C-alpha cells in the first residue's frame, strides 16, 4: 500500500534543515540569485498583466462623431464595469456558470470521492491499474476531450446516440449543452481528483481505521464517519481549485459553439471577454469583465478557506 507513494517526499528531519537555515542567514547573494529568475518571470507574466488589466478597465476608446478618425482614450472610471454588468449577455454568462457549478461540482466531487473510497477499500483489486485508467483522461488535452465528446454527442457519428436511438430513446445532448459540457468536465477531472483523495486516504493512520473496526463500524460507516472527515482538508482544496477552474470555463463550450445552437458567443463570462476583445475590439470592456471574473474567483476562494478554517477551529474547541 505504501509502494504507490514511494516518491513522495519523506517527512521529518525538519529540525536539521531549520538549523542550517539559521546558520545560513545573512548570506543573501545566493538566495537572491536563485529566486530572482522566478520572481522576474512571475512579475512579468502575472503581476504586471493584473495591474495592466485593472488600468485598462478604467479607460475606453472614444471616436469622433462619425466613427472615423483617431480614437481617443478616455478615462471612464467604473464605466466599463457598469457596461459589463448592464449587459444581459454578461449576466447570463454568470448564470450559466452558476448552473454549471451546481451540476458539476457535486457530481464530480461525489464520483471522485466514491472512486477513491472504493479503491481504498481492502476489497479492491488491481489498484495500480484502476488508478492509472481513471487518471488517463487528464493526459488528454481539454480541446481533444471536447472534440471527442462532441462527436459522441452528434447523431450519425456517435455509436452511443445510435444505440440509444435504436433502443427507442432520443437523447439530444447538443440541444442541452449544460449537461453535455458537465459530462466533459466530469470525464476530465474525476480521475485526477480521485488520485488526490486516494493519496490522502492512504495517509490516514491504520490505527484509526482499526479502532473503528473494533468499535463495530462497517466499511460504509468507516468510510463516511471516519475517512471522509479526515480528508476534509483535501476535499476543501480540490473544491476550491474546482470552483476557480469552473469560473474559467471556455475550451469545451468553444468547441460546441456552432455545433450546439444554444451555445452562443457569450455563453460563459470568459467567452464574453474573448468576444469583447477580439470581435468587438473593446479592450476596456474585456478587461473589466476579466477583472470582475478574477475578483469573483478571489472572493470565492477566500470564503471557502474562511468557512473551513472556522469549522476546523470550532471542531478543535469542541474536542477540547
Amino acid at each position, binding site marked *: 500500500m505504501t509502494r504507490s*507513494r514511494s516518491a513522495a*517526499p519523506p517527512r521529518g528531519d525538519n529540525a*536539521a534543515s*531549520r538549523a542550517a*537555515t539559521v546558520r*545560513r542567514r545573512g548570506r*543573501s547573494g545566493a*538566495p537572491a540569485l536563485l529566486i530572482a529568475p*522566478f520572481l522576474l518571470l512571475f512579475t512579468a*507574466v*502575472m503581476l504586471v*498583466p493584473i495591474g*495592466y*488589466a485593472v488600468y485598462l478597465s478604467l479607460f475606453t476608446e472614444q471616436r469622433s462623431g462619425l466613427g472615423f478618425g483617431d480614437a481617443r482614450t478616455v478615462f471612464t472610471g467604473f464605466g466599463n464595469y457598469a457596461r459589463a454588468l448592464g449587459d444581459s449577455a454578461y449576466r447570463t454568462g454568470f448564470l450559466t456558470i452558476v448552473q454549471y457549478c451546481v451540476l458539476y461540482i457535486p457530481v464530480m466531487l461525489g*464520483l471522485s470521492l466514491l*472512486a477513491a473510497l*472504493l479503491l481504498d477499500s481492502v476489497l*479492491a*483489486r488491481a489498484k495500480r491499474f484502476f488508478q*492509472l*485508467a*481513471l*487518471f*488517463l*483522461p*487528464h*493526459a*488528454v488535452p481539454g*480541446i*481533444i476531450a471536447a472534440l*471527442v465528446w462532441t*462527436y459522441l454527442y452528434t447523431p*450519425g*457519428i*456517435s455509436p452511443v446516440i445510435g444505440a440509444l436511438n435504436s433502443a427507442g430513446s432520443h437523447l439530444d445532448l447538443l440541444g442541452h449543452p449544460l449537461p453535455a459540457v458537465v459530462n466533459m468536465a466530469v*470525464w476530465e477531472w*474525476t480521475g*485526477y481528483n480521485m488520485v*488526490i483523495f486516494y*493519496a490522502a486516504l492512504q495517509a490516514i*493512520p491504520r*490505527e*484509526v481505521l*482499526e*479502532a473503528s473496526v*473494533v*468499535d*463495530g463500524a*462497517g466499511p*460504509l460507516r468507516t468510510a463516511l464517519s471516519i475517512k471522509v472527515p479526515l*480528508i476534509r*482538508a483535501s476535499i476543501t482544496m480540490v473544491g476550491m481549485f474546482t470552483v476557480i477552474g469552473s469560473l*474559467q470555463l*471556455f475550451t469545451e463550450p468553444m468547441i460546441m459553439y456552432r455545433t450546439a445552437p444554444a451555445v452562443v458567443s457569450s455563453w460563459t463570462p*470568459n467567452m464574453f471577454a*474573448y468576444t469583447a476583445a477580439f470581435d468587438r475590439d473593446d479592450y476596456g470592456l474585456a478587461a473589466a469583465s*476579466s477583472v470582475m*471574473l*478574477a475578483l469573483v474567483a*478571489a472572493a470565492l476562494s477566500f470564503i471557502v478557506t474562511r468557512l473551513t478554517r472556522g469549522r476546523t477551529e470550532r471542531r478543535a474547541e469542541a474536542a477540547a
Partner: protein
Amino acid sequence: MKTLSPPERAAAPQPRPTPAPGRAGRRPWSPSKAAVNGALVLFTLYTLLPLGWLLTAAAKNTPDLLGGNTLTPADFHLGQNLHDLAAADAGIYFHWYLNSLLYAGLGALGCAFVCVCAGYAFEVYGFRGKEKLFGLVLLGVLVPTTALALPMYLLASKVGLVNTFWAVFVPSLVNPFGVYLARVFCAGYVPGEVLEAARVDGAGELRTFWSIGLRMVMPGFVTVFLFQFTAIWNNFFLPLVMLSDSKLFPVSLGLYSWNTQTRSEPSYYPLVVTGSLLAIVPLVVAFIALQRHWKAGLTAGSIK
C-alpha cells in the same frame, strides 16, 4: 498551509478483541468484493471508452466516420489517414506537433529549473520577508489564468511579441504551484546536514546547489516537469489569443482551426480525429512511464 493532521487518536484504547457489546448481534453491512470491483470497472469503462472510440475512429475514412459504421478489417484506413494527415495543408500537422514539443519540452524544462531554484532558496535559506513572499507566490496559484491571457496579449502587442514563439513560451515558464511543490520536495529530499558538510568542505552556495541540492531533489524536478509539460501541451486559450500565424500553432490550436473547417469541408473530419489520437500519445506514454512522479506530485498537493 495546513498539514493533514489526524486527530489525536494514537493513544486510543487498546484494540479490544471483540466488537463492542450490543453490536455483536448484527454484522455491519459490507459491500461484496464483486460490487467494489464492479463499480471500479464501470468507472474505467467510462474513462476509457471515449479513448477507445477515438482509436477506432482514427482508422475510418470520411463516409464510415460520418455514417457511424462499425470498423471492419476491410475498411481499415489508419495508414491512409496518417498519410493524408502528413500531406494536408503542406504537412502543417507535423509542424504543429514539433511546435508543441518545443513549447512543452523547453517550457517545462525551463519552468522546472526556475521553480526548483526558487523552491530550494525558500526552503534552505532564511531572509527577511520570506514567508510573506512565499504567500504572494501561493496567491498566484489562485489567479484564473484565462483572466491573465487578455492583458498579456495587450502587453505583448505593445512590445511587439504578439504572434511570435516567445508570446507562448515565456508565460509557460511560470508556475507558482511548481515553486510550492519544489519547496515541499526540497524539505523532504535535501537534508540540511549534507549542505552544511558541503559548506564546511569549502563549496560555495551556488556550487552546493548545483552539485548537491539539485541532484538530490531530482524526483521533484521530474514531477514539476511532468505537470508543466501537460499544462503547456494542453493549453489552448493562450495560443488562441496570442498566435495568428498557423506556422506557430501548437497541436491543440491547429486541431481547433481544422475543426472549425469541418463544417464546409467534411474531409477534415478524419484529419481531426487521427490528429487528436496522435496528439495524446506523448502524454499517455509519459503518464504510464512516470507513474511514481505524478502520484508524488498529487500526494504533495493533497497534504497542502
